[in-house]
C-alpha cells in the first residue's frame, strides 16, 4: 500500500470531506453585504446588478441552458467560449469566509484570493461547472488547478509565458489560444464559423465601449457613482453575458450622465490587487475617509473591461492573435514581465483625469504586487504625485490602522 503510485483520485476523498457541512450554495453574509451596499447607492439602475449578485450562484447554470465554463484571471479569451456556445463565468472570489474554508486544503501563508477560490468550491462543487479553465498566471492558481483536479469535471490549463512582450511571444500566444480553441471545439462538439467568433468579439467590444463611457464619466465627474456601485457593476460582468451586461450598463450610464458631480471631492486612483465582491473592505475605508475612487487600474474592473479586441485581419488566425493582444499583451498584472505598463497606465490616468493621488492596495501575501509597488512609489515620488501603499487582507483587525493612514493621506492632500 505504501508504494502505490499516487493518483489524483486519492485526494478526492479528502476534498469531499472538506466540503462536508458547507454544501449550501449560499455563502453566509453575502446577501447582508449586498443589501448594505444597495442602501448606500443612490442609483436606480444598479438594482439589476445587485440582484444579479444575489442570484449569481444559484441561477446562472440553469437559466442559460448552455454549458458553463468557469475560469480564473483575465487571460482566458471569453470570445472563444462564447463562440462555442459556452457561458463563461469568472470565478475569482474574495470572501473571507470562503478563505477560511479554503485553509483546510491550502494551509499557510498563501494569497487569500486563492484560498477563497478554493473555499468557494468546497461550498458548492456545482461551481466546477462543465469546464474549469485555469491560466498559468500566478503560482497560486497553478497549484489550485492541481488541488482541485480530483473533483473537477474537466480542467483545462492555459500556459502563458511570463513575458508579455508582443514581439517575442505573439506566436506562442497564438499557438496556445488555438490549442485552447481546438480543445473547446472537440469538448463541446461544435464547429463555430468565423462569423460567430466575430459576433462574440462584437459583443465584448460593445461591453468595453459601454464600460469606457462609464469609466470616463466617473473619472471626469467625481461622485456621480460611488465605488461600491461601480465595482458591483464591473464584477457582475464576471457571470453576466456581455450582451445583457451592456444593455443594463447603458441604462446605468444614462442615469449617471444626468447627475451632477460633487464638488470638492479628492479624486483617487486605486491600483493594485483586485477588488472583488464581497471584499469591499478597502472601499469601505476609503469611503469613510471621504475620498472618491475616480479611476482604477485593478484587474477586476479596468484590467478586465478597458481594452477591446481590435481585429486587423479577419482570418481565424488573425482573430486569435487579436484576442491575445487584448488579453495577454496589455496585461498590467505584476505576475507578468512589464511593470512599465502598470506605471505608464497610472501616470496617464493621473494626468488625463487630473487625479489627486494614487492608492495602491495590496492583498497581503501577493508578493508580486507588493514588489511592483516599490517602483511605482519611487516613480510617482519623482513626479510629485501623492502615493499611499496599503497592505491588508480580508480580515477586519487592521481597519483602524488603515483608516489612520487613509485619513492622514487625505489630510495630506489638503
Amino acid at each position: 500500500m505504501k508504494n502505490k503510485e499516487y493518483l489524483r483520485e486519492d485526494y478526492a476523498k479528502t476534498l469531499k470531506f472538506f466540503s462536508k457541512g458547507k454544501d449550501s450554495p449560499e455563502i453566509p453574509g453575502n446577501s447582508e453585504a449586498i443589501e448594505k451596499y444597495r442602501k448606500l447607492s443612490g442609483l436606480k439602475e444598479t438594482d439589476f446588478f445587485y440582484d444579479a449578485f444575489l442570484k449569481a450562484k444559484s441561477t446562472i447554470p440553469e437559466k442559460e441552458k448552455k454549458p458553463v465554463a468557469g475560469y480564473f484571471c483575465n487571460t482566458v479569451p471569453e470570445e472563444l467560449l462564447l463562440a462555442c456556445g459556452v457561458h463563461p463565468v469568472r470565478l475569482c472570489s474574495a470572501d473571507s469566509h470562503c478563505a477560511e474554508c479554503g485553509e483546510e486544503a491550502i494551509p499557510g501563508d498563501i494569497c487569500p484570493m486563492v484560498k477563497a477560490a478554493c473555499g468557494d468550491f468546497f461550498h458548492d462543487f456545482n461551481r466546477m461547472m462543465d469546464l474549469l479553465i485555469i491560466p498559468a498566471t500566478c503560482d497560486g492558481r497553478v497549484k489550485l488547478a492541481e488541488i482541485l483536479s480530483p473533483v473537477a469535471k474537466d480542467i483545462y490549463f492555459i500556459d502563458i509565458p511570463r513575458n508579455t512582450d508582443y514581439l517575442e511571444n505573439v506566436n506562442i500566444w497564438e499557438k496556445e489560444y488555438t490549442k485552447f480553441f481546438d480543445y473547446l471545439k472537440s469538448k463541446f462538439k461544435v464547429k463555430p464559423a468565423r462569423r460567430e467568433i466575430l459576433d462574440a468579439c462584437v459583443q465584448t467590444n460593445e461591453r468595453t465601449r459601454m464600460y469606457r463611457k462609464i469609466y470616463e464619466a466617473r473619472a471626469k465627474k467625481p461622485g456621480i457613482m460611488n465605488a461600491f456601485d461601480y465595482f458591483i457593476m464591473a464584477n457582475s460582468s464576471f457571470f453576466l453575458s456581455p450582451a445583457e451586461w451592456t444593455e443594463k450598463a447603458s441604462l446605468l450610464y444614462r442615469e449617471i450622465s444626468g447627475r451632477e458631480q460633487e464638488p470638492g471631492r479628492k479624486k483617487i486612483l486605486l491600483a493594485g490587487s483586485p477588488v472583488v465582491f464581497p471584499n469591499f473592505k478597502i472601499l469601505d475605508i476609503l469611503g469613510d475617509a471621504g475620498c472618491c475612487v475616480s479611476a482604477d487600474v485593478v484587474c477586476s474592473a479596468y484590467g478586465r473591461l478597458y481594452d477591446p479586441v481590435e481585429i486587423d485581419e479577419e482570418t481565424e488566425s488573425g482573430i486569435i492573435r487579436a484576442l491575445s493582444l487584448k488579453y495577454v499583451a496589455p496585461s498590467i498584472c505584476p505576475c507578468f514581465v512589464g511593470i512599465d505598463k502598470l506605471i505608464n497606465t497610472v501616470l496617464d490616468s493621473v494626468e488625463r483625469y487630473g487625479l489627486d493621488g494614487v492608492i495602491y492596495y495590496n492583498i497581503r501575501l501577493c508578493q508580486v504586487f507588493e514588489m511592483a509597488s516599490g517602483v511605482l512609489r519611487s516613480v510617482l515620488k519623482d513626479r510629485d504625485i501623492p502615493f499611499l501603499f496599503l497592505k491588508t487582507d480580508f480580515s477586519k483587525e487592521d481597519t483602524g490602522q488603515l483608516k489612520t493612514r487613509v485619513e492622514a493621506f487625505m489630510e495630506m492632500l489638503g
Partner: protein
Amino acid sequence: MNKRRITFLRRTVQILCLVMLVYGGYIFKVKHHTTQQANLFPALKAPEGYISTTKFDRGSILWPSGDNPVLENYPPGLVCRFNPRGGLFKACIVHFISENLTWRTSFKYLLPHLTLFMLLCFLFGRLWCRWACPIGTVGDFLTMLRKKMNIPSRKFPAGFRNGLRSGSYCILGTSFFISALIGVPHLARFQCYWFLPYCQICPARLICPIFGLIKPGWKDFETAITTMFTILAWLVLGIFVAAFYWGRRIWCHLCPVGLMNSWFNRGAGVELKKISVKCNKCGLCTEACPMGLTEMFEKKTDGVFNQSGCIMCLRCVEICPRDGCLSANFFGRKIVESRLKK
C-alpha cells in the same frame, strides 16, 4: 466590424488614383502624340486606333510655358509617368531618372521634375505607396483575396526586411548604372532594348496595361535581350504576387521607387507621433502594420517616429484602442489620433 474611417478613405483614394492614372487620358480627352517607337518599351504601347501613329499636331507643344496641364499627352496605360515630356510631374522617379540618364538629357531639364518630386516627398514622405501607387492597389486586392480565403499572413523577421531593403538599393543602383552606361559616348553600343532596365522588369509593365486594355508585351521574345527581360519580368511578377498574397506589403521593401520616396520619410511633413505613456504595449500597431515594422511598438519615448519603411497608411493610428496614444500630424498640426472605435 467597426467603422474604419481611415481604411475607407484610403481605399477610395487608392481606387480613384488607379482610375486617374490608368484612364486619366481618356477622362480628360487630351490629345497626345506617339509614334511606333513606343514599342521600345512595350508597356507604353498605346491602343490601336486611338492614336494616330503617323500624324502629329505641329506646334501644340509649348514648353515651358504653363498652358499644358499635367495630364496632357497622357496615353492610357502609361502609369509610370503622368506626362512624358515637359509636364509637371513624372510619377515614377526611377523611370524618369533612368530615361534622362540614357538620353543624356541636360541636367537642367531634370531640375523641375526633381524639385517637384522632392516637394511631394517632403510633404508626404512615402504616402504615395499606400495611398496612390496603382500596383500597390492591385496588390491590396490580392491581400483581400487571401483574407477572404482565411489564410493567415506571413510575418517576416526584421533581418529579412533589411535584406530586402539592401536588395532595393542594389536594384536601383544597377538600374541607374546600366542607364548611364548606355549614354556614355564611345563606350558601348547598347541596343535600345537595354534602356530603362528596371522598368522592363517592373511588375507594372505587365499589370498596368491590362487596365488600359493594352497588350502589355507579355511574350516579347524577339531578341535575346527582350527575351531575358520578359522572363525576368515574369519572375518579378511572381515575386510580387507572392509577396502581396502572403506578406502583405513586404514587396514595398524591395520597390526602388518606394526606396527613393523613403529618403525623405524621416523629415516628411506627415508625421506619426506617439505618446508612450498612453501605450499599453499591446502590439496592435505592429500587428496591423502592412510593412511589418516594429519600431513604433518598441519606441519608449514620446515624439515623431517616421521610419524609412513606413508607408503612412495610418493603419496603426486607426487600430490603436488607446485614446490619443498615436496620432498623425501634418507639420505639427494634428489630423487624426487614435481612439476607441465607436
